[in-house]
C-alpha cells in the first residue's frame, strides 16, 4: 500500500511534469503563433493601411520619388524603441509622417508642439495608428526587413504573393 502510494506519487509527479512540459510547448506554440500573427498584422499596416511601402518600397530599401528621399529601413541602425518613436511622431523637417493622432497637440513627441515646429512639422499620415499597431509594424520590420541585405525573389513572393508578376524581374 505504502509502496503503491509512493509509486503512484511518482507517477502523478511524472504526469504532472509531462503536463507542464506540454503546457509550455503549447504556450510556446501559442506564443509563436501570436508573434506570427502580429508580424502579419504589421505587414498589412506597412503594405496597405498606411502604405509605408509607398515611400520606403515594399522591401524597405528606401527610394527617391513622390514620397521623398525615404531612408533604407534594411540598413537602419535604430532600435525597436527608436523605430516605434519615428512611426509615432514622424521626423520633423522630412517627409516621414507622424501616425499618432495626438502627436504635436502636446509635447509627447520630442517635447515640441505643432506651433513650435512650424514648417518642420511632419506630414499627415494616410491613416493613424494606435500603440498596438505601431508595435506590430516594428515587430514586422525587425522580423523581415531591418538588418537584412538586398531583398530576394523569395522575400518578394512572400510579400506580394505568387499571383502577381510583381516579382518576375527579380527571378534573374
Amino acid at each position: 500500500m505504502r509502496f503503491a502510494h509512493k509509486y503512484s506519487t511518482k507517477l502523478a509527479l511524472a504526469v504532472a511534469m509531462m503536463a507542464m512540459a506540454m503546457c509550455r510547448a503549447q504556450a510556446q506554440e501559442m506564443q509563436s503563433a501570436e508573434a506570427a500573427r502580429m508580424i502579419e498584422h504589421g505587414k498589412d499596416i506597412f503594405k496597405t493601411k498606411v502604405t509605408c511601402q509607398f515611400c520606403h518600397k515594399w522591401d524597405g530599401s528606401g527610394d527617391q520619388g513622390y514620397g521623398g528621399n525615404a531612408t533604407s529601413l534594411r540598413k537602419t541602425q535604430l532600435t525597436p524603441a527608436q523605430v516605434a518613436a519615428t512611426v509615432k511622431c514622424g521626423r520633423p523637417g522630412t517627409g516621414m509622417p507622424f501616425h499618432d493622432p495626438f502627436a504635436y497637440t502636446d509635447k509627447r513627441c520630442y517635447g515640441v508642439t505643432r506651433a513650435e515646429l512650424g514648417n518642420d512639422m511632419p506630414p499627415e499620415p494616410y491613416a493613424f495608428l494606435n500603440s498596438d499597431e505601431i508595435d506590430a509594424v516594428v515587430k514586422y520590420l525587425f522580423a523581415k526587413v531591418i538588418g537584412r541585405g538586398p531583398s530576394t525573389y523569395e522575400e518578394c513572393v512572400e510579400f506580394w504573393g505568387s499571383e502577381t508578376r510583381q516579382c518576375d524581374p527579380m527571378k534573374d
Partner: protein
Amino acid sequence: MRILSSIVILSGSLLAGSALTPASAADMTFERALNANKEPQNWLLYYGNYQGHRFSPLKEINTDNVKNLKLVFAVALGGLESGGRYAFGSLEGTPIVDGGVMYVTNGWGSVYAIDVSSGTRGMIKWKFDPGIDRAWAGDVACCGVDNRGVALWKDKVISIALDGRMFALNKATGEKVWERKIADPALGETITMAPLVVRDLAIVGPAGGEFGIRGFIDATDLNTGQQAWRTYTIPGPGEPGNDTWKDGEQHWKHGGGSVWETATYDPDTDTIFQGIGNPGADWDPQYRPGDNKWAESVLALNPSDGKIKWGFQYTPNDPFDFDEISEHPIIDAKVNGENRKLVIHAARNGFFYALDRTTGGFIFGKQYVDKLNWTTGLDPKTGLPANYDPKSDVQVYAPGTHGMRGEPLATVCPSHFGAKNWEPAAYNPTLNMLYIPSIEGCDGLETVAQKDFADQGGTLKPRDRFSGGSFKLTSRLYGSLKAVDPTTGDIKAAVRLDFPNYAGALATAGNLVFLGHADGSFIAYDAKTLNPAWSFSVGTGINAPAISYAVNGKQYVAVLAGSRQSPFTMQNDPSVKYSATTSMLFVFGL
C-alpha cells in the same frame, strides 16, 4: 381566363418596361463627334466637344433656379481595392452619356454602363472588369490609381486599364470584342487617360515620367485592334529635337515626356494637340543638359499618321516637374483686333498661353497663378521664360527656386504640383471666358544626382523610380478658380478655394461653373462673378470633373466622387485629415 389575364398583365408590363427603356442609342460616328454640341442631351466626348471646352449648351439649370438643385440619385461603384503602392483606387473620370446610358470607369479600369433614363435611379446595366494584376500595375503608378474615362466608337465602348491595355467592348452588353497591349508596366508605363477617337483611330499615351520611360503617342486602328502609328515624344537620333539632349549618354532613352491627358482635336486643320509631360529625371536637370524636347511641350500632330506638324516647348530643361499634359482648348477669337485661330493652355508652370494653332507661333502669355517666382515673365516674342538662358545647357531660371545638386532646399512658386495640374478648365463660348481651377502656393525642391539605368551602365532596374530628388511642402497649399479672358489673359473674376483643386470644371449655358472640392463640396458658381450660387456636400473628396446631360428634356449634372486627398497636398489641414474615400456617382437635377 386567369392564365390569360396573367399573360395580358405580363405583356403589358413588358411593354411598359420597354417604353421606359431608351431606344438603343445610335452608333457613335465621326459626324456625331464633330457635331457633339448639337446633341446637348448627350455628353459624347471627354471634353464635351473635340475643342476641349467642357461646356454644356443646356440651360434649364441656370443662375436663377440653381438654388433648387437637389440630389436625385446616387450609384455606388467599385474599384476601391488596394494594389501595388496604393491602398485604394480613386475616381477621376469624366462620364460619357449617350441616349440615357452613362459610361463611367473606376481607377482600376472597370467600365460601368448605367441606365439613367428614369431620372430617379441609376441602374447598372453591365460592368466590365479588365482583371488587372493590381500589384504589378499599381507599383508603377506614380501618383494614384486613376482612369479618366472611355470613348465611344460605332457600337463599341473603347476603354483602357492601368496596366496599359486598350479594350473594345460591346456597347450593349459590355462583352469584350478585342484588347490590345499598348503600354508595358515592365518598363514603368501605365495608362490613365481617356482615349481620343478621331475617325477610326483611338489615341492614347503612357504615364511613367517618374519611372524613366520614353513617352509616346499611340494610335490604334479600331477596325482591327492593331497599332496604326506611334510617335515618340522624345525624339530619337535623326529626328528633330534629339540634339536638345546633350548629355552624350543617350539619356533621351529614359527621357520621360509622358502623356496622361486627352488631346484636343481641330477638325478645320485636322490636327490634334497633345500636351507632353516632364523630362526624366524630374528634378535633376544636370542629368539631362539641353532643352529636352518635347518634354513640357504641346505637339500638333496629324491624327492619321502621327506626323508632328509643330511643337512648342513651355519650360525647356525643366527642373520643376511642370508637366504640361493638360488640355489645350481650341478657340477662334479676335486678339488685338485680328481674327486668330488659337490653341490655349493654362500651364502647370503658372502662365496662360495663347498660340496660333496653325503655326505653333506664340501670340501672348500671362501669369494667372497668384505667386510665381521661377522666372520674371515670358519673352514677348518667343514665349520662352524670361530667365531662360540660351547659352546654358542647364537652366537655373530664377536663382533659389530650384536647388541644383548639393544645394539646399529651394522654394518654387507655383509648387511643383503646379498651378493647374491635370484638372481640366472649362470654356464658356458665349461669355468668352475660360475657368481655370488651380493649385496655389509654393513648395521646396531638393535635387539628388540621378543614378543611371542598368542599360546605360548603372544600377537602376526598369520599374525603379527615377525622379532625381524630392519635394517638401513648406507651407499649406490652397486653390483658386479664375475666370480668364482667353484673348487677353486678363483675370475677370477669381475665388480663393480652401483646398488645392484636383477636380476640374464644367461650364454651362445656364451661366454656371460647377466644381468639386477636396472636402466633398460640390459648388455651382455664377459664371460672371464666380460667387457661389449653390453647394452640396457629398461627404467625400471630389477629384473628377462634372458633366451635364438631359433625359426626357430634363437637365442633370453628374459627378464622380471618391478620392482620399493626398497628405502631400492636404498637409496640416485638420478639416480633411479623417476624410475617407468611397466610390460613388452623384446626379443632381431640379
